[in-house]
């Protein structure tokens, strides 16, 4: 989104900021410079103003505590951390979990996706698309929505697009309220498998403490069947609303568009293949039921977790930390003999350095800048909020083949069985022609909800098979070695999640979790490359009908929320109507100045 150098008109830029941002998790601020005459956002900086220091206070603790502690990183996806930590610990301790334990964790995590995507989509994101909001930002669009019949009204029962919008009015709308109830139902499903939400009680390195009776699976199944009814109407309803925006606002596909640079670290272990050994990680990574992968410009670069691991780099540049170049190196090489970079999470030392925020040319965020090094460039990967990258990588890889979910090499097909109000239904997610933009990140979330529900059906069947055979072992005993390393790769709800653990003298010597939001919300790195939110917002065309005086920034907010921010992270509209900057040539801004 860098402005092209060349003859440019003079621009009058207005500073606009939103801090804190609402309807996300954590502290996030978005600071922009907007050219209202040309209806374009020219510059964006993303900052997070919260530091807690997990990597600091975990040092010296018992490694078995890691899953319990790291869960507290996040209040909406903490269980993803516990799971990822358990994966890393399993590797470090040399554990293969019993198959039923893997399936119970998969079922728990599937419920987490269903819960989290549903509450985020329907109670947080879609408030940006609700009748009340659209009336305030795009009244003409609302008039058009009133006149536009919803193509799938026969499935979801909302006659017009405006009816769909009305159903998302906070606390009043029917879909808003139903989603709240569904978020409870799915959390009950989660609790059946992982004890409690969001910080699990029954998940341990080596397995789970969940008592694997037929009852626990029946209780999950009966709730899943009820959720299927909701999920089945959600997808066509989301499609109708999103397709309307494309039709009604030509050019909207450029909102939030950035180069396709997607990362997915894989989800749902296959107990038949996964042994948690680093040496076999390539193999069991590819057996996961969401395929790990990096997609660059529409091409699948890799599906190899070892390769993914080796390419991780944590850069500074705009963050409140001292560099660790001179600190100790924990891991020289991986178990396969590959060299591990000093900027890899295994070798990171977190040295917080609180200081004033400098949005012009200094540090401005507590978030670091994770990048993926492909041998040439440090790529600022994003996750597309999670679902977009997962579906994209899985679709291209062509590896997932289950009775309910199949990858075709170009798409993912999802088959849902019959439920009370709907017959069997097939959904197919196809790689979007519009590219990685705000609407496609949002659409993918709905499709991943049905993906998770369908996979849950598969895991449930396999788990019940084991229980019928009397194989109810859920925990494998282990001993913590004096020295060891481990890495966990998992897809948190919002995307890529890695945990890197170093054990020395039986204690945690180094522990670095990298959730999706550091990738998405990262500030400019040492090379001046903006983070994904920044990149997606820079160059964003403005479709809001309000002028500068009453500007709300809805398209910017839809874009930021399409990534599903989760920084325990903030847009403050400072100076009310914005501060007018001096006129400048656009090539002088941002990247070019570095």
């Amino acid at each position: 989104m860098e402005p092209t150098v060349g003859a440019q008109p003079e621009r009058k830029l207005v500073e606009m900021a939103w801090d804190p941002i609402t309807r996300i998790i954590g502290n996030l601020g978005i600071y922009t410079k907007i050219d209202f005459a040309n209806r374009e956002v020219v510059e964006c900086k993303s900052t997070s103003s919260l530091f807690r220091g997990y990597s600091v206070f975990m040092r010296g603790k018992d490694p078995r505590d890691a899953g319990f502690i790291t869960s507290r990183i996040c209040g909406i996806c903490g269980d993803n951390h516990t799971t990822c930590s358990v994966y890393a610990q399993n590797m470090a301790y040399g554990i293969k979990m019993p198959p039923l334990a893997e399936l119970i964790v998969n079922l728990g995590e599937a419920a987490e996706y269903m819960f989290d995507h549903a509450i985020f989509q329907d109670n947080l994101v879609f408030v940006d698309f609700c009748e009340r909001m659209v009336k305030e930002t795009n009244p003409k669009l609302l008039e058009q929505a009133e006149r536009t019949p919803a193509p799938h009204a026969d499935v979801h029962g909302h006659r017009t697009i405006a009816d769909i919008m009305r159903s998302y009015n906070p606390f009043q709308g029917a879909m808003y309220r139903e989603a709240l109830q569904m978020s409870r139902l799915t959390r009950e499903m989660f609790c059946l498998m992982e004890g409690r939400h969001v910080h699990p009680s029954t998940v341990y390195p080596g397995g789970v403490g969940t008592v694997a009776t037929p009852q626990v699976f029946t209780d999950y199944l009966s709730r899943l069947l009820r959720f299927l009814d909701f999920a089945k109407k959600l997808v066509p309803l989301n499609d109708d609303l999103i397709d309307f925006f494309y039709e009604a606002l030509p050019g909207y596909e450029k909102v939030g568009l950035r180069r396709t640079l997607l990362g997915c670290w894989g989800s749902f272990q296959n107990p038949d293949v996964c042994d948690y050994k680093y040496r076999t990680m390539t193999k069991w990574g590819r057996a996961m039921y969401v395929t790990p992968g990096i997609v660059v410009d529409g091409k699948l670069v890799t599906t190899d977790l070892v390769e993914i691991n080796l390419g991780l780099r944590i850069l500074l540049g705009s963050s409140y930390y001292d560099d660790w170049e001179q600190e100790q190196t924990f891991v020289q090489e991986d178990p396969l003999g590959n060299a591990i970079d000093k900027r890899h999470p295994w070798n990171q030392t977190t040295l917080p350095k609180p200081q004033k925020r400098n949005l012009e040319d200094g540090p401005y965020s507590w978030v670091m800048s994770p990048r993926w090094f492909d041998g040439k460039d440090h790529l600022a990967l994003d996750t597309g909020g999670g679902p977009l990258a997962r579906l994209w990588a899985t679709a291209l890889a062509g590896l997932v083949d289950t009775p309910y979910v199949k990858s075709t090499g170009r798409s993912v097909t999802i088959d849902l069985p019959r439920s009370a109000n709907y017959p069997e239904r097939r959904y197919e997610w196809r790689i979007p022609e519009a590219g990685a933009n705000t609407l496609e990140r949002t659409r993918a979330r709905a499709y991943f909800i049905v993906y998770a529900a369908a996979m849950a059906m598969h895991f449930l069947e396999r788990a019940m098979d084991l229980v019928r055979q009397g194989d109810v072992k859920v925990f494998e005993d282990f001993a913590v070695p004096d020295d060891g390393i481990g890495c966990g790769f998992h897809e948190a709800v919002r995307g890529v999640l890695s945990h890197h653990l170093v054990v020395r003298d039986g204690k945690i010597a180094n522990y670095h979790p990298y959730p999706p939001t550091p990738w998405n919300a990262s500030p400019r790195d040492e090379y001046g490359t903006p983070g994904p939110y920044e990149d997606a917002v820079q160059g964003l065309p403005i479709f809001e009908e309000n002028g500068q005086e009453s500007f709300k920034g809805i398209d910017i907010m839809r874009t930021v929320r399409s990534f599903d921010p989760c920084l325990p992270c903030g847009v403050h509209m400072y100076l009310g109507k914005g501060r007018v900057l001096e006129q400048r040539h656009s090539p002088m801004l941002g990247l070019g100045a570095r």
Partner: protein
Amino acid sequence: MARTRSGVDEVHILWISEGMSCDGDTVSVTAATNPAIEDVVLGLVPGLPKVHLHNKVLDYSLGGEDYLAVFRKAARGELEHPFVLVIEGSIPNEHVNGDGFWTSFGNRPDGQPKTLNEWIDELAPKAWGVVAVGTCATYGGIHAMAGNPTGCMGLADYLGWDFRSAGGLPVVNVPGCPVQPDNFMETLTWLLYQAAGLNPIIPLDEQLRPTWLFGKTVHEGCDRAGYYEQGDFALDYNSPKCQVKVGCWGPVVNCNVPKRGWMNGVGGCPNVGGICIGCTMPGFPDKFMPFMDQPPGAAVSSRLIRTYGRLIRTLRSMTNDTVSQEPRWRHDRAELTTGYDPRWSTGGAGARSYREHERELHASHPATASGPEPR
């Protein structure tokens, strides 16, 4: 329901989750059903004042100054209705970080982040009530772990344990990591009834917790406590028995989760195979780590109970065998042996104990008295 004159009709809830937090308590509260958040916001609970909820995760606004306006107004003392200040996350020590900040909520007029601590200093004295949600805000929690860089603490550590709000209340602590959904909504409901003049002052214990929610221990409400009493302990996490030897701190932790369930009675901790790590307690987490080790006190008590427990278990097993068998008069033979007597007489079966009747039957039908009864 009648409302007293002292009651207020409308209340703002100003909820700041920008402490050292994960927003897990806000998320948790959306799981509550007793009452549900929408029940309160939509005014469905009779007697409650009208509630204006200002919470970042659920707020309609897009953020920034639109969202902060009500907080700024409250800080200036200009809010038209009383407000309850809810703090989520622990309070960092902002004395130790030079020119920087550990956490902030919006900006100051100079454009630099406005710290949580500055907000608390301005808002807490003006609040009708101050509530700390989650173990971080109440006592410091996981982020106040030994070795942490931010020096963070609980709200009462920051404001003083003798703090009194404008409504005359101490800090109200609702611990839990995260807070159990209904525990918070129930506490809030009490306070709202209190603000309406319908409830007496909320009963709190020395740690400022609602007594009716935190007065009992995990163990006292745990359905695995029977195993404990019988000296029958899980040795790994495969077992459905009492988990004190594999890390459960339930006997010494004040929390109602096993009894109440996590949500809608589903889930929990030791009752469903998850060791209690003491996440509702002021000493959490340091005094409970390593979590998966047996608590030192449990080593002593479980050794003491082993002999007694084994004896009890043996005796109960024998009794269980007996009560697992039906009485002898349930059969399809051509005679009635129930002791049926159409009229009251001191000799009738109705007047005799089960054991006396069994003894007589045994005498009259010795053949059926030996060996296990037919099922």
